[in-house]
């Protein structure tokens, strides 16, 4: 287990969601679900973050922003799509202004469906994300050794 997977820091961005999933992401960090006790901390700075929690179906204006946040995060990094909107566009998929899903803009590692996504599902997704984070860290190490 690497240092980052022991205590991954998360960053959250609302890519045109309805707030429902955002407040559930925050609720997962707050008492009641309290993932902070496992060292998972919410940060506002992409450069400090290991896991990117994206909610919402992503509209035209948001594509560049989530790409930018994603690019600013340092490797290894994991993207979790929170809520059915982020997974596939959900109820908004035939709106004219949404691209329908985060994976159309950046690569997504874990999908957490639900409308709104339940905090338990977010925690589950983050735990899965930690495993992916470890794998990516290993791969990165191997690549460096090889180089």
């Amino acid at each position, binding site marked *: 287990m690497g240092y980052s997977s022991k205590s991954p820091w998360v960053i959250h961005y*609302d890519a045109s969601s309805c707030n429902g999933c955002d407040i559930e992401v925050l609720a997962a960090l707050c008492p009641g679900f309290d993932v902070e006790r496992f060292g998972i901390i919410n940060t506002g700075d992409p450069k400090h973050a290991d896991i990117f929690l994206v909610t919402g179906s992503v509209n035209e*204006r948001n594509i560049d922003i989530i790409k930018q946040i994603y690019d600013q995060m340092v490797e290894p990094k994991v993207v979790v799509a929170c809520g059915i909107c982020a997974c596939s566009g959900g*109820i908004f998929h035939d*709106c*004219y202004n949404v691209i329908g899903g985060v994976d159309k803009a950046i690569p997504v590692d874990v999908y957490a469906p639900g409308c709104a996504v339940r905090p338990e599902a977010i925690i589950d997704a983050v735990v899965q994300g930690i495993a992916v984070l470890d794998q990516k860290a290993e791969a990165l190490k191997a690549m460096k050794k090889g180089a």
Partner: protein
Amino acid sequence: MGTASVIPFGPQHPVLPEPLHLDLVVEDEVVLEAMPQIGFVHRGLERLVRSKDYNQFLYVAERICGICAFGHSMGYAETVERLMGIEIPQRADYLRTIWHEMSRIHSHILWLGLAADAFGFESLFMHCWRLRERVLDLFEKTTGGRVIFSVCKVGGVQRDISPSQMSEILAVLDGLRDEYSQLVKTFLGDSSVYSRTAGIGAIPHKDAVELSMVGPFGRASGVNYDVRMLGHGAYGDLADFQPVLSTDCDCYARMEVRCAEVLQSIDIIAELASKIPAGDIMVPVKGNPAVDAEACNVLEQPRGECYYYAKGNGSKYLDRMRMRTPTSQNLAGMTLALKGCDLADVNMIILTIDPCVSCTER
């Protein structure tokens, strides 16, 4: 004298869970002008009335905003009921109002938490959200959902609150009242909170009226307006309703107003629970809205007055659905309050209008 420079604020910013972008023109750490840029949450929901029928659209209306989700489904359902001339059972009206007031409690406590976060009082933030979880548990018990309930339907509500659930609601809210009052003591009495909020971002009464500010934001500047005092539906049966007002006009006053409104909502729920009539919770709905039938409706959302308009075209699809949300009314007030403030206070001022970007942009 320095030279003016522009600082971007947002759209990804730790203080707001939502994307709101502001270009702040600052000189010597003083904000000269704030220019909001919006469009980050625009999905084009109003257009969906063309492809979803009036029953299906209710679920879209609910997802306009996840914080006032129930309010939007209630506002939309009432509008369509007016459009089609449907009279809903009184019990359904009461149930809706009870859920709506519970949403207000959860929304205000959520806001108080975010405000605490904005002035850097992390533990207070956590305490607020801890209390909020109890209200969400009640939602889950009575409706099955924590955030999106889908209990409101055109013609009534889908679930009833049983007497035992009702007494549980009252017991939980009563317990909440004590702990909440403790928190309010910190919010309103702590000197560090006071120094971050008092006298900051004041909007005089005259400007508030001119900019037609609504909701707690307006009421903190003495605007005596709350849709609930018009006595629509179950609100008409309340023995007495007085909007919570303040005259200080600053961030502290806005906090004060919201703190008091939570307790007011608890009282309203208790009163409605004692008066709720027995009977049906739903009437069957048949037919479609008539050609060119129009209806409008206002509702007091946690953030202020929300206006709904719907137009029928004889089919099961509506011709037009339009809403004007409280935050779009209040944005003008926000830019005014930001003018001339310290850069360090920008967070606090933006938060005290309680912007709901997803409502506004839809």
